[in-house]
């Protein structure tokens, strides 16, 4: 039987990819962020997940405004990253697991979700940067990928409640999958940041703290907000917390926080990384 081992949550700022490409992990500006990863690398080495379900948002690599899905699920044999306009592309391909993608799609549609289904899909820095952070330097990634994109670009965005429930539906699919995969769930982006407008540079430590304290033990606490509340509280790009909520939903049940790292600033962002482990099921 497949098993959900845990969830990893991390910022995906494109500049992190640039820092990796230039080998700046020990540079004083970047080190406090990268220092959050060695304990996660040790956990990955111990738990050996072989597949990753990644909740993320596309920033204009695969999707344009001509067709903007609220939710899109990849069902490809392979995914690639490409140049997003700045000349940087990550070379390692991401192997897919289309049978599981279709199982997830069938399960979430049966639970009244209506995702766009993608047999071809480029994944942008919101998938590539976390993979580079989690599995640096390997010849190929040791996990196969199911990417699930959530619209955080064009309002109206899905509500926090809807995203948490999408995650829960995906979690049900994973638990009913008859394969023997060892699964890690990823939620990428955040925390508070805003790139545009007169409020560019906005950061909200208090709200970030609220998110970090609640995403594990009590994700429902975030459901008191709608998506525009999130814009106001977390900044117009801080709405990426929606990806964290969906990933947390997929974990289901109780979780234990093993690691958390919060660091300001990375680029214009309050960056964060968190590792949550699924608690063993307790027999009734």
């Amino acid at each position, binding site marked *: 039987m497949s098993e959900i081992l845990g969830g990893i949550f991390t910022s995906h700022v494109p500049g992190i990819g640039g820092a990796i490409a230039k080998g700046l992990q020990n540079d004083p500006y970047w080190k406090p962020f990268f220092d959050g990863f060695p304990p996660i690398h040790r956990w990955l080495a111990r738990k050996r997940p072989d597949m990753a379900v990644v909740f993320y948002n596309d920033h*204009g690599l695969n999707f344009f405004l001509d067709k903007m899905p609220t939710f899109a699920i990849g069902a490809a044999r392979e995914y690639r990253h490409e140049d997003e306009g700045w000349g940087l592309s990550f070379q390692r391909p991401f192997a897919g697991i289309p049978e599981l993608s279709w199982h997830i799609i069938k399960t979430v549609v049966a639970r009244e979700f209506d995702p766009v289904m993608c047999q071809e899909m480029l994944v942008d820095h919101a998938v590539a940067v976390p993979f580079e952070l989690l599995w640096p330097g390997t010849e190929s990634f040791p996990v196969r990928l199911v990417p699930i994109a959530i619209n955080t670009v064009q309002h*109206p965005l899905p509500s926090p409640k809807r995203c948490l429930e999408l995650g829960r539906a995906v979690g049900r699919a994973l638990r009913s999958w008859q394969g023997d995969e060892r699964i890690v769930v990823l939620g990428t982006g955040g925390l508070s940041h805003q790139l545009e*407008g007169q409020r560019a540079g906005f950061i909200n430590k208090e709200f970030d703290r609220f998110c970090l304290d609640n995403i594990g033990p009590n994700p429902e606490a975030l459901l008191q907000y709608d998506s525009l509340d999130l814009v106001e509280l977390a900044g117009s790009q801080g709405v990426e917390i929606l990806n964290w909520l969906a990933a947390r939903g997929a974990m289901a049940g109780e979780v234990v926080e093993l690691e958390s790292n919060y660091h300001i600033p990375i680029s214009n962002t309050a960056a964060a990384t968190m590792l949550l482990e699924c608690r063993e099921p307790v027999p009734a």
Partner: protein
Amino acid sequence: MTALAAQRAGARRPIPGTAPFDGDLAMRGYALNAMCYSFNRAENREAFRRDEEGYMEKFNLSRPQKDAVRTRDVLAMLEAGGNVYYLAKLAGILGLNVQDLGALQTGQSVEAFKAALLAQGQTERRSAA
């Protein structure tokens, strides 16, 4: 104001210094964002560098969009419907990073914008190990 216009105006909730990218902005900005989306390809970035005016014309940018690009006025690009994720690709061609963009939009020097971010600096780690 027509009832429809009033409904649309009333539906937009004010958030300080922030205009959420909604359907109205997405329609207004379509041409500008389509041009910026094309910059994912290196040959298109090169074509823009060679002939900005011709490239903007090819994508049917509106006059306010063209003026905003000509003057590198980021707030005017947003006002003309630009979305920051797509504008970031144009910014790359212009040699501007997100701190440069932040400075331009908030009327500060880049040093002051960066200093404001660093002034909030903190690192907080928790580990169960």
